[in-house]
């Protein structure tokens, strides 16, 4: 029986991170995930909309939940920021019947929808470890990802109720997955620290220092590549890598890919890209 989920790709996958969408499709086929695309789903707010009006963000996300619920499905996303934001708003609705009623009144008035609180939200990483199983992953891994890999969780999925049965502060699902794919997992503190993605426009100097610290720690611990479970953090660590290095004087040369790319390459998809990545790993770094 295929595992069926409603799919939310995250905020950046439609635009600046197309590689996440590309590889997620292939990975879903390999894993036997049956994804229902929520064409009407909005941005999760990325923690930004709630800075203007938290109830507005909750209402937008409640609409997304209602769409998934109408399909009788839970939501899956490969983006940690999306998983964290959706899950936090979901828990707020579930724990506050008055808020749920008020938001449902808005949904009824604006969209003719209703959300009863049944839908749940999962990050891809947790579905893999808890639903699919690492033994199946080992069997699917036709290309050994034989590098020293630093798995980056981000803080967004490392909170109570969002990280499945993994530890909030000292997780190891990612390390187990890397091991199952033939890689050598790096143990590092930075894996759950924020690289400041929501602050990149307003507090760039601090964000550059944060991201430089996270990347350089992975390097110091011997990693050859960082794999991110978060689309937004992934972009920051990649796009701003050179600027962060110049701003801090810290060496930050390091390939950064997304979790869905790691899985796709290991499962034998996108072989050209994997070959390019191997070359990059060989030439990038000290």
């Amino acid at each position: 029986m295929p595992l069926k989920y409603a799919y939310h790709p995250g905020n950046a996958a439609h635009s600046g991170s197309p590689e996440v969408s590309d590889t997620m499709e292939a990975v879903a086929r390999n894993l036997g995930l049956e994804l229902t695309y929520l064409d009407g789903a909005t941005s999760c707010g990325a923690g930004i909309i709630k800075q203007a009006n938290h109830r507005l963000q909750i209402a937008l996300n409640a609409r997304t939940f209602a769409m998934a619920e109408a399909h009788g499905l839970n939501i899956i996303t490969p983006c940690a920021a999306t998983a964290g934001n959706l899950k936090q708003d979901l828990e707020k609705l579930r724990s506050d019947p008055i808020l749920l009623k008020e938001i449902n009144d808005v949904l009824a008035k604006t969209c003719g929808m209703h959300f009863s609180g049944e839908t749940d939200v999962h990050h891809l990483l947790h579905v893999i470890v808890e639903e699919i199983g690492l033994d199946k992953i080992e069997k699917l891994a036709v290309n050994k990802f034989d590098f020293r890999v630093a798995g980056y969780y981000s803080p967004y999925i490392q909170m109570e109720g969002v990280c499945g049965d993994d530890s909030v502060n000292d997780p190891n699902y990612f390390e187990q997955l890397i091991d199952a794919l033939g890689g050598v997992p790096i143990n590092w503190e930075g894996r759950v620290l924020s690289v400041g993605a929501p602050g990149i426009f307003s507090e760039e100097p601090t964000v550059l220092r944060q991201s430089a610290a996270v990347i350089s720690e992975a390097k110091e611990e011997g990693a050859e590549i960082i794999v991110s479970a978060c689309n937004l953090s992934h972009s920051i660590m990649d796009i701003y890598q050179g600027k962060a290095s110049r701003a801090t004087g810290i060496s930050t040369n390091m390939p950064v890919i997304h979790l869905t790319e790691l899985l796709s390459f290991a499962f034998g998809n996108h072989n050209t890209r994997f070959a390019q990545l191997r070359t990059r790993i060989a030439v990038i770094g000290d």
Partner: protein
Amino acid sequence: MSEESVSATEGIEEFLSSGDRSLELLFGSQSGNAEGLAAKFAKTAKSYGLEGTVHDMDGFDFNSLSSKKRVIIVCSTWGEGEQPDNAEELWKFANSDAASRLEGVHFAVCALGDTSYELFCESGKEWDSIFEKLGATRIVERIDCDVDYDSPASEWALKALPALAAVDSSGNFMEEMVDGITDYASGSSAVAGGEDGFVVPTIETEAIQVELSVFRFDPSTNSTGRDSWACSLPGHISILSALRAIKEGHDGSLSFRDGNDDDPSTAVSVNGKLVLPGRVRVDSIVSSRDESLILRIDPIPGSDVIRDLIVDHWALERKRESTRPWMVAATREGIQTPQGVIGSMEQSTALRIHSLANFDSAPLLHSSSDAVPYANGFLGPAVLASAWARRNDPRTAPERVAEIDSIIGSENGIRAETDLSPIFRRDGYPKSVSEGLLEARTKAIENDAFNGKLGKHVWWYCWTVKSSGKVNDTVLYRQVLGPIGLLGNLFSGVTARMMLGFTRTGGNVLNSLLGMVVPPAGVGKMPRQFNSSVSNHHEVVAIFNEMDGRF
């Protein structure tokens, strides 16, 4: 329990429940620390059969003390040995000829100060002296507390309160009762084991084999590293007890802040979790790796390490001080009560104010922000949460509210936080604290009319989501960074990395034909110029219109 001990217990209970059991606690406070301590002592005093009443020195009738039996003075020192503002008048009166004699009064003084000032705890010393001069009896020696006052003050109270409790209603000090009262209050006299009571058992667990790995820093050589010990520890003991055991039995040079279980200054990181080590059992936080159990203990992030696990809280204290955290009260109507005219507050308001700053350890909350170690001037979540609570307190004067708004909205205020998620994800304090910080950020953005980079980021994010249902990064870059910022990104390589995807893999060279028309948007991994709208986009617009017409 033996008949003898039952009888002794009954004797203490009778002593502690008969006659005048009042305790007057006077505070002289500039920043609220002394007031907080006095309130804490008053609460603890109940365990000793005392009915504590906390008095602000400002407006207090000094001569009313002459008829009292027990008095505690908690007083801070301001500037160069000066009395705090609220104690000035009382201090002058106490030194005047009009001051009554205080024979029959038993007193104790807890002085707060700062050793970096020449006249350390001077105000407390002065109160100690004047009470003695006026004939009062010092029941325990005065304590002079430095900036980290909580732990020593609490220890001092464990001596002062039973001694004061041993003063009978006639004002006689029954010294032989002190030990019994101490045992009674701590519960070790087994008073719960009476006919209808029960003895609370100590829950013990078997020893577990743990690898205890502790961060070390030696300031004399400026060297860092880790020491590990393979230990057999009872699972029920606290992390603090485990550290004590290591220090006593293995390495006397191991340095950490010791104190009561709830001492806020003792905060450390254990397996990545920020905790007060006296409150956390070993078996509740141990991490399992490669079939071994690990306790990895580090200093909390965001503060300079002095030695091993000891961090410097001074910078945090300075930040707190810079916000002038003391109350500047508004003039407001009171209500008439048998005790006189007092202010009142709706229960819901009182609960809200309490919940906004309901954290036990400022250092722990401060270190929960991942931005704190990288943003030097940033006041941090602990200072800002306290400021936000004060700002929402209806007792605060309107002009002070405006000042606090200005502090919270400043460049070192809430806008300096790059990401609130790390504060939300920690569990060492209630969610109301992190939600309060989000409210403070919203207020700061609104006060700034969505100007500045943060305001523009939030505004245009909302605007683009309303426009298509999706975020449009191109609009954000253009509207928030402006032409200078975009040029900066062009020359710093950011734009090139966006187009090439650099270390990211794959993706079309052109995301859409728009890249041909209005480059660089849409080229490589540059975000698109325009987003396609989500299905039923009108519903998204309707939600925005219904809930927030600003966008």
